[in-house]
C-alpha cells in the first residue's frame, strides 16, 4: 500500500444517473458466475427433482393409469420442493461474507439488487426445472398434449415461487439452521401457485381451456414482481441489522 492517491475526495451531490442498470446487471452476472463455479449446486435441484419423482412409482404403483392420474400434481409438488430447497442458500453466502451489508449501503435501491439475485436464482433453478419436467412427465406417463402447458405453467409459476421464497430466505438468513423454518414460512404461501399450476396441466389433459389458469399464474407473478422486492429488501435490512 503506497501513498499514491492525492486526489481530493470531491463531494458528490447525487448518485450517478443510470447506475441502477449497471448495478442490476452486474449483480445478476455476478450471481450467475458464482453459481456456475459451483456446478454441484446448479445440478442438485434437478437431481432432487428426478429423485423425488422416482420415489412415487416405487411408493405408490408402477401402473401407468395410476401414475397418469397423479402425474401433474407430482411434477408440481416435486418441482416446488426442489425450488424451495435451493432457496436457502440464496442470501446465505452474501450474509456470511459481508457483501449483503455492502449491498445495503450501495447508492441503489436494495429492492432492485435483491430482484437481480432472484432473477439469477430463477434462471438457474426455475428455468432448468421447467425444461426438465417434460422428461420426467414421460416417465410418469403424463398424457400427451399437456407437455407444452406443463412447461409454460412451470415457467410462470416457478418465477413466483422464487420471488415469494426469497422473502422467506431473506427473513431467515440471519438464523443459523433456518432451512426447515424457511419451508414452514414459505410453503403455505406456495399453495395458490400449486393449485393453478396443477389446474392448468389437468385442464390440458382433459382438453379444456388452459387460458384461465395460465392467466391466474401470470397475475400471481405480476403481483409478486410488484410486491416481493420491497418485502425482500425490508427483510434483508431486518436480518442484517436486527
Amino acid at each position: 500500500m503506497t501513498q499514491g492517491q492525492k486526489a481530493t475526495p470531491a463531494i458528490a451531490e447525487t448518485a450517478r444517473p443510470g447506475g441502477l442498470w449497471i448495478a442490476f446487471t452486474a449483480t445478476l452476472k455476478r450471481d450467475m458466475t458464482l453459481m456456475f463455479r459451483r456446478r454441484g449446486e446448479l445440478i442438485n435441484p434437478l437431481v432432487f427433482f428426478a429423485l423425488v419423482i422416482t420415489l412415487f412409482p416405487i411408493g405408490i404403483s408402477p401402473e401407468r393409469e395410476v401414475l397418469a392420474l397423479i402425474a401433474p400434481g407430482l411434477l408440481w409438488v416435486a418441482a416446488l420442493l426442489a425450488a424451495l430447497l435451493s432457496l436457502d442458500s440464496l442470501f446465505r453466502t452474501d450474509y456470511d461474507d459481508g457483501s449483503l451489508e455492502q449491498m445495503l449501503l450501495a447508492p441503489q435501491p436494495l429492492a432492485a439488487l435483491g430482484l437481480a439475485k432472484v432473477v439469477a436464482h430463477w434462471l438457474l433453478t426455475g428455468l432448468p426445472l421447467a425444461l426438465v419436467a417434460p422428461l420426467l412427465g414421460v416417465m410418469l406417463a403424463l398424457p400427451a398434449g399437456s407437455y407444452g402447458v406443463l412447461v409454460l405453467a412451470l415457467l410462470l409459476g416457478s418465477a413466483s415461487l422464487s420471488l415469494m421464497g426469497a422473502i422467506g430466505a431473506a427473513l431467515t438468513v440471519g438464523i443459523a439452521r433456518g432451512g426447515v423454518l424457511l419451508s414452514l414460512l414459505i410453503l403455505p404461501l406456495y399453495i395458490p401457485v400449486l393449485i393453478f399450476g396443477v389446474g392448468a396441466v389437468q385442464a390440458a389433459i382433459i382438453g379444456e381451456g388452459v387460458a384461465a389458469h395460465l392467466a391466474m399464474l401470470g397475475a400471481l407473478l405480476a403481483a409478486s414482481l410488484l410486491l416481493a422486492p420491497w418485502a425482500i429488501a425490508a427483510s434483508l435490512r431486518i436480518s442484517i441489522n436486527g
Partner: protein
Amino acid sequence: MSLCLEARQLACEREGRWLFEGLDLVVRSGEILRVEGPNGSGKTTLLKLLAGQLSDYHGELFWKGVPFGKVREQFVANLLYLGHSPGIKAGLSPLENLAWYQALCGERGSEAQRLSALEQVGLEGFEDVPAGQLSAGQQRRVALARLTLTRRALWVLDEPFTAIDRQGVAALEAQLAAHAAAGGSVVVTTHHALSASSAVRCIQLG
C-alpha cells in the same frame, strides 16, 4: 462544499439496555475520528448508525446540516463503509470482486484502475486467484483496495486493521492521514494504537 457529519443527542437502545445516550459529535473535513471503548460498548452499532444503516435510534443525525432521512441517497453516494466482514466473495477473483463493487456504485470502471488499486494494496500476482484461496489478511486488503478505487469523502471503517501485517498497518495509517489531509474524513474503530497525528480525535464509549 465542506463535509460535515453531525450527531445530536444520539442514543441507542438494544434489548432494553442503553448502549449509549446523549452522544453529540461532529466530523468535519480533514478529521479522523477514532471511536474507543471496551467490547460491547456499542462501537459497531455507532458506526452503523453513522453509516445510516440503522433506523431505530433516538436523537438526530445530520449530513451537511440536513437530517439523514432527507439526504439518504446523497449521503450514501459519499460514503464508504467497511464492516467487520470484508465483503469479499470467495468464489470470485479480487478483480471480479472490485468490478462488482464499482458496478454497485453505478460505475463501470476500467480494468486498469482495478489492477492499479490491487497493486497499491500489495496484491500483484493475485488478481485472478479466487479470493477463497487468499489469506484473511489478503482478503482484507482486497476490501481496502476499494478505498483507492472508489473515491468517497467519508470513510467509516470498523476495525480495518484486523488481520493485516505490520507493513500493511503502516501503509493504511498513512492512507487515512492522506485522506484527511486531502479534505476527506474518517470515522474508525480500532484496538490498534494509531500513531499520534494532529488530525486524530478520540471519543470514548462505555
